C-alpha cells in the first residue's frame, strides 16, 4: 500500500457535474449490510487511489444511500427534509449536517474503530464534537495521498519536526492521528514531536533546526499555528533568524482560533519567511476539521514544484482533492453562490462514508480558480455590548 499511496494526485477539473438521472434503492437487510459496508469502503478506497473524472457523482449517491440506511439519526433528518435516496439525483442535493451536530449526536454508520474529539476551544471544554470513524484505512488513504501531493510533491520523505502533541499526548485528536500517520509514512527516522506536557520544547526545537542548517539537509516543520507563533515571538525577543536549507518547508494548521492575536495571514507568512528562511512557496497551510476525514492544503508548493504559476502567489488557494466537493453557500439562504462570492463552506467528502459525507460548516470562504480561500473560521457569533455570547459565559462559569 505505501507504494500505491506515493502515487501523486492529479488535480484536473474540480467540478464533476455528471448527473445520474435514476437511482435505485436496494432492499436492505442486516446480513447483506456487512458485505455492502465492505464493498462501499473498498470502492471509496479505490476511488481515492485512482480517482476517475466522472465517478464522483455515482459514488456520492451510493454513499448517501448507504448513510441513509446505516445512520438512523441522519436518515430521520433526511426524511424530514424530504430528501431520501429516491429523490436525490445529484450530490448537490444531499442534505448536509451542521458540524454542530457532532456535539449532540452519535453519527456513526457502524461500530467506530476510533472516535476523535474536537478541541472544544470555541464553546469551552465540556461540549466537544465527536467524530466516529468506522474504518481508519479510508482516513489514512485520504490523508496520506493528499499530504504527499501537497507537501512532498518532489520527494519521498523528509525529516519532520512536528509542532503538535503526539497521539500519546493528545489521544483524541484527529490532528495528532494524522501527524502520526504522515510521520510514520514520510517523516524519516529522525522525525520527532516538539510539544510535550510542558508545552512547546523550544530549546530542543532550536537545537534540531540549527543542526539541520549545519548539515544542510532540508526539514519539514509541521504543526499548529499557535505553536509556530510561539516560535516567532521567541525569535523576535531573541533577535533570532534562521536560514533553513533549501527545500525546507512549513505546514501550519489551525490558525489563531479563540486567541486574540492580531496577525493577518500574509503577515504571518512573511514572518515565517523571515524567521525560518523558508520562501512563501514552501509555506503550506492545512485546513481540516475533526468532523471530516479529508483535509485541504494550499496549492503553492505543488505548483512551485510543477512549475505552475510560480509568480502568482496571490492565487494561493486550498486545493480540493478529487474525492471531495466544496460548495460556497449563501449564509442566510444556504443556496449555492456563484463563483467568487463569499459564503459558508459546505463539504462533501467521500472519505467520511463512515459518518456523514455532507457537512455544513461555519467557515467562511470563497472560490478561487479550482479551489477556495478561507476567510474566517467558526468562532461563534459575536454578540455586542452588555449581552453576551454563549462561549463567553461558559468560560466564565
Amino acid at each position, binding site marked *: 500500500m505505501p507504494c500505491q499511496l506515493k502515487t501523486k494526485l492529479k488535480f484536473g477539473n474540480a467540478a464533476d457535474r455528471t448527473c445520474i438521472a435514476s437511482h435505485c434503492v436496494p432492499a436492505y437487510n442486516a446480513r447483506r449490510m456487512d458485505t455492502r459496508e465492505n464493498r462501499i469502503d473498498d470502492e471509496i478506497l479505490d476511488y481515492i487511489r485512482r480517482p476517475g473524472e466522472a465517478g464522483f457523482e455515482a459514488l456520492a449517491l451510493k454513499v448517501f444511500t448507504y448513510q441513509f440506511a446505516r445512520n438512523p439519526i441522519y436518515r430521520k433528518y433526511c426524511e424530514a427534509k424530504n430528501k431520501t435516496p429516491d429523490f436525490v439525483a445529484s450530490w448537490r442535493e444531499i442534505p448536509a449536517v451542521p458540524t454542530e451536530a457532532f456535539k449532540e449526536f452519535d453519527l456513526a454508520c457502524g461500530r467506530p474503530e476510533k472516535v476523535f474529539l474536537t478541541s472544544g476551544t470555541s464553546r469551552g471544554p465540556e461540549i466537544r464534537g465527536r467524530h466516529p470513524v468506522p474504518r481508519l484505512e479510508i482516513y489514512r488513504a485520504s490523508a496520506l495521498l493528499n499530504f504527499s501531493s501537497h507537501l512532498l510533491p518532489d520527494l519521498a520523505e523528509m525529516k519532520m519536526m512536528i509542532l503538535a502533541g503526539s497521539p500519546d499526548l493528545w489521544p483524541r485528536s484527529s490532528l495528532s492521528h494524522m501527524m502520526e500517520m504522515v510521520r510514520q509514512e514520510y517523516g524519516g527516522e529522525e522525525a520527532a514531536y516538539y510539544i510535550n506536557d510542558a508545552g512547546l520544547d523550544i530549546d530542543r526545537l532550536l537545537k534540531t533546526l540549527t543542526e539541520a542548517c549545519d548539515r544542510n539537509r532540508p526539514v519539514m516543520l509541521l504543526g499548529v499555528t499557535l505553536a509556530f507563533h510561539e516560535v516567532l515571538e521567541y525569535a523576535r525577543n531573541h533577535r533570532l533568524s534562521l536560514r533553513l536549507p533549501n527545500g525546507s518547508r512549513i505546514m501550519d494548521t489551525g490558525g489563531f482560533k479563540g486567541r486574540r492575536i492580531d496577525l493577518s495571514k500574509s503577515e504571518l507568512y512573511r514572518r515565517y519567511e523571515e524567521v525560518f528562511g523558508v520562501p512563501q512557496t514552501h509555506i503550506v497551510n492545512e485546513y481540516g476539521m475533526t468532523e471530516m476525514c479529508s483535509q485541504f492544503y494550499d496549492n503553492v508548493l505543488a505548483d512551485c514544484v510543477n512549475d505552475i504559476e510560480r509568480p502568482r502567489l496571490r492565487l494561493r488557494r486550498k486545493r480540493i482533492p478529487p474525492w471531495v466537493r466544496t460548495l460556497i453557500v449563501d449564509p442566510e439562504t444556504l443556496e449555492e453562490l456563484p463563483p467568487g462570492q463569499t459564503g459558508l463552506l459546505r463539504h462533501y467528502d467521500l472519505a467520511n462514508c463512515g459518518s456523514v459525507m455532507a457537512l455544513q460548516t461555519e467557515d*467562511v470562504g470563497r472560490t478561487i480558480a479550482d479551489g477556495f480561500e478561507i476567510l474566517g473560521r467558526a468562532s461563534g457569533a459575536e454578540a455586542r455590548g452588555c449581552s453576551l455570547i454563549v462561549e463567553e459565559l461558559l468560560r466564565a462559569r
Partner: protein
Amino acid sequence: MTDRFNLDGFYLPPPIKISTFTKLKFGAVQIRLPVLTATTLSDVINQLLAAQEQHLSRQSTEAILKIIDAAVSRWLKPEDPMRRTAEAALPGITGLSPAMVRLGVTRLMEGFQRDVLTRILDQELGDLRMLDGFEDQDEGSRRLIRAMGPRMTTTILAGNIPGLGASELIASLLVKSSCLVKVSSDEPLLTALFARTLVEIEPRLAHCLAVVWWPGGKPESKSIEEIAFGRSELVIAAGSDEAVMAVHLTVGRSRPALPRLIGYGHRVSLGLIGREALDDLKAVSRNAALDVAMYDQQGCLSPHLFYVETGGSRFPRQFAKAMGQELARLEKELPRGPVDTATSARLHQIRSVAEIKQANGEEEVIVFGSETGTLWTVIYEADPTFILSPLYRTVRVKPIDDLMHVIPRLEAWRPYLQAAGIAAPESRLRPLAEALGRAGVNRICPVGRMQQPPAGWPQDGRRFIADRVRWVNLEMP
C-alpha cells in the same frame, strides 16, 4: 442606501481643536473620531472641571431638568434635525432596521421626560432639593444633609443598544457632574448628537461635556485611560466582563485620586408565562415576540428563553407556535437588521441541530422558523435546562409545571441575571418576584414591556442617580 454620511461621532468643549482623526466605516456611513493625545485629554478635562466648578455646580436642579426636558422634547419630534441624522445613520452603524431605530429612539427619549426624572430624583434621594443644598435630615433634629455629584464622571459605553450615552449624559448632568463619555466603536454617533442638542439649548453646557473615543483597554491607550480615570471621581464602565475588568485594573493603578467605579457587565434575561396568560394566546405571544424582536435581542433585557407553565387552556408548544407567527408578523413591521456571515452560520447550526432532534423525536423538540434565512427561530424544547440563545431573534420555549420551579434552574446564572418578564395574574406576582429577586434578577416586569424599562430602573441592581452621589451632612451646634 444611496446616501453617504460623513458624521462626527465626538463632541469636544471649545476651543479645543483636534487635527488627527480616525474614521470608522459602516457601509455608506463614515464616523469621524478624534485621535486623543494625553495633552489634549488633559486640556479637555481642565475645561470640564473648571466649567463644573464655575457653572454646573451652581445651577439648580430645576434649571437642569428644564434643559434636559427641552432636549428630550426636541428628540421626540420626528422632524428634529439631530434625530433625523441619527435615524438615517444608525441602521448602517448598528445593523438594526430603520423601523427598529425609530422605535428605539422614541422609547429611549420617552423615559427621560421631566416628570419621570423628577420622580426618580425624589424617590432615590428622598427629595430632589438635596442636590441644591442642605435639607433637614429628620424634622427638628438639627442635622442636615445634602447630596453632591462627582466633579467629573468618565463613562465607558457599551455599543449594543443605541442611545445609552444619552442616558449617561442626562444622569451626569442631574447630579451636576461634568461628563467625559467614551463611546463604543459599535455605536459612535448618538451620544455626540445628543450632546450637541444639549449645548444648543444651553450654550453654557458647552464646557461641561465631552464625547470621545479611544481604543479601550489597548496598550496604546494606557496613558489616556490613566489620565481619564485618575482625574474622575466616578468611573462607569459598561461592556463585556473582560472590558469591565480591564477598567477595574486601570482604575486601580490611577492613584493618588482613586475614583469610585461602577461596572455593568454581561447580563441575561428570560420570560415566564403563567398558565392563566395562555387564555389570551394571541396577546401573550405578541408581547413575548416584541420583547424578543426589540433591538434584535441584543440588549441585556432581551429574553433568551421563555418558560411556559403547563396545565393552562393551551399547551406550551402552542405558545411557541403562536410566538413564531408573531415574530413573522413583526418581521414585516419591525424587520430584523442584516447579520454578519458568522452570525448567520451560528443561527443555522443551532436551528439545524434542533431540526435533527425534532426529526429523531429526541426529548420533544419542535422548530418554528422563518421560511428562508435566519430571520427568526422559535425552538420548543421539553428539556427545562436554562440555555442561552445565539440571539438575533432566536428563542427557546420550555414547558414547566409551575413557574416557581424555574427558580432552581437559574442558580448557575445568578451573577448574570437581569430581567424576568412575567405574564401572570397580579395575585401571583409578589411571591414570584420575591423568589426571582432572591435568585439574582433585578427587574421584574410584564411580558411585552421588557425592552421598555422605566428610566431609573435598577440596572445590574443599582440605582440610576443615588449611586452617583456622595452624601454630606451638617450637624448644627
